[in-house]
């Protein structure tokens, strides 16, 4: 591996226009996010946030399906979108593979599912001919607990969602990628079967040395599976750190709220949560986007944008509270080192 970083995001920004050509408002779906996933030990990084937090936009940028409006994305230390050392698409696809949210959407209903497996194996250099490909595929299916014979020649509607998602993962494994970006891979899957998929990630991380970016709104599976967690809110990365640290000691008030809201077993809710009324407004504010809902809010939160504060080893939070609401004169752009 040539680089120390499997993946790096620098000041990543993505704006969408809503409304007319000249008058539309700009919506920052991803607002100045920096993140690094180090090489060496494979890791699972969870990006957690509610819908509209920008996590899916980020996933699509990491997968090259969307171009950023600002900032850079590096995979294996090389530019993804621009630059002389730009990774070509062939290399990119051997290095990074996706798992999509809806397994039924991820495969065309008009094609046998295994055709994707063959295409992947033959196109991305995992196999030289169909016979070899068959072996590669069979082994990939094996690692996700499926038998080639059960998959061969079948169409997506002949599988359950869980099975399809496994096939999806098997396909992603075929080129032996270093990074798999999984965008809400279990949200369409029955709760009782989710753990099977999530456990696969853990297993593959260890067996196949694959790193994962696991994008989810489900904090409990994120905690269960990941080494690092990034919490997103309205396009901002509000908190980042090792999963244990974040969950035992959340620093951002939003992380707290999120954790409180997970319906846990063995611990009942007491208080009443504050729900936002009009969500889109928050994208446009220049101060802290969480200020309106924050129980610890002070005046400064409504005036300034909070800095990304280093609060510990590999930990950052986008909040004034850890620095005692000290106003920032110069904004520190902290490159998070994980």
């Amino acid at each position, binding site marked *: 591996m040539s680089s120390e970083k499997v993946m790096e995001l620098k000041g990543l920004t993505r704006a969408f226009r809503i*409304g*007319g*050509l*000249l*008058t*539309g408002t700009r919506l920052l779906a991803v607002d100045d996010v920096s993140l690094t996933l180090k090489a060496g030990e494979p890791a699972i990084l969870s990006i957690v946030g509610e819908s509209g937090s920008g996590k899916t936009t980020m996933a699509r940028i990491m997968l090259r399906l969307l171009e950023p409006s600002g900032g850079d994305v590096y995979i294996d230390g090389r530019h993804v979108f621009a630059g002389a050392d730009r990774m070509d698409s062939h290399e990119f696809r051997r290095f990074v593979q996706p798992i999509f949210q809806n397994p039924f959407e991820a495969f065309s209903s008009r094609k046998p599912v295994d055709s994707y497996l063959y295409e992947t194996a033959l196109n991305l250099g995992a196999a030289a001919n169909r016979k070899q490909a068959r072996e590669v595929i069979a082994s990939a299916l094996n690692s996700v607990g499926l038998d080639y014979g059960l998959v061969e020649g079948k169409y997506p509607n002949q599988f359950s969602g869980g099975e399809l998602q496994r096939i999806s993962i098997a396909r992603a494994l075929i080129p032996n990628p270093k990074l798999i970006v999984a965008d809400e891979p279990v949200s369409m899957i029955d709760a009782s079967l989710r753990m099977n998929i999530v456990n696969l990630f853990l297993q593959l991380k260890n067996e196949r040395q694959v790193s994962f970016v696991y994008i989810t709104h489900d904090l409990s599976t994120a905690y269960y599976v990941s080494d690092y967690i990034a919490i997103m809110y309205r396009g901002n990365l509000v908190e980042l750190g090792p999963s244990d640290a974040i969950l035992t000691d959340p620093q951002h008030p939003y992380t707290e709220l999120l954790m409180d809201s997970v319906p846990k077993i063995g611990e009942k809710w007491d208080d009443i949560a504050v729900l936002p009324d009009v969500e889109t407004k928050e994208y446009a504010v220049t101060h802290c986007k969480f200020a309106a809902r924050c129980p610890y809010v002070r005046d400064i939160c409504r005036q300034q944008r909070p800095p990304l504060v280093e609060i510990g080893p590999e930990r950052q939070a986008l909040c004034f509270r850890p620095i005692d609401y000290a106003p920032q004169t110069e904004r520190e752009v902290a490159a998070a080192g994980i």
Partner: protein
Amino acid sequence: MRFAVFLLSRLLTYVIVVWIGMTAVFLVPRLMPTDPVSAMLGRVMSQGAFMEPAQVEAIRASLTASFGLEGTLWEQYLGFMRRVFITFDFGPSLAMFPTPVSQLIGRALPWSLGLLLASTLIAWVLGNTIGLLAGYHRLRAYSKFLEGFAVLVYPIPYYILALIMIILFGYVWGILPTNFSMSPMLKPWTLDYVWAAIYNSILPALSIVIVNFGWWFLSMKALSSTLAEEEYVDFAKLKGVGEGRIMSRYVAQNAILPQITMLALVLGGVFNGALITEILFSYPGVGSLIYSAVLQADYNLLMGTISLSILAVSTATFVVDLIYPFIDPRIRYR
């Protein structure tokens, strides 16, 4: 402000579309093998008069001048565009020289408009209402029967359908006039005059209604039977909302959107007149004007009528785009 920008860009497309359409209108008749001047000469000479070649050329020049066909194609084009966009004057009709085209259209247009507006709207309302019922009750027998009827009537060539109606209504039963005639006793726009106009238009209108009904019915039925399966319709049932209200507010209001778009297009087409209807019922509308323009290679008249319908249809689509957000709250000016 957002609206203004939308309006502006939409207006630009509108103008470009109209411009391209008009240019085509200008060019197509000029590609016709017929030269109206020669045609006129031919007609004069076929009636027995004969002339020396020099004389023929003299007449040719004077006809060319009086028909506004002088100059290069480009000069004619500029003149044409000026006329279309600035004065909307298409010059004199060639076959009915020197009656101005605008006057001919002006005389024919009210008839076409009256006939087609009324019959189109009636067909639209009927087709959509019955189509809605049939689509909502798509499993019931009457729905299938109506669909069968529509499928059966819709493909009958219009000419045949109209002739059958003429024979039945005008001849076998003798209850409706089979072609257009207004008595000179009637003063324009008195009650009797209007009544006579309506009476004269019943049969052509009915034939249009029957044919269009099939189309509206079939499309509405398809739309509403899909919509009847929407979750919000189900939920409305669970809310205990009455069937009538479900049909009107939940199914119809959603199904009607594409139908309104189509209606606008069709209403724009009203300016074309109804060609075959008008020929068959000797109805004095734009359709028969277009037909006679083609028969007589009447450039100016052709360009006038076709320009009018291009303008009308593109204006109709333009207007639909503008009013659509009022009909469908989900749509914003993009």
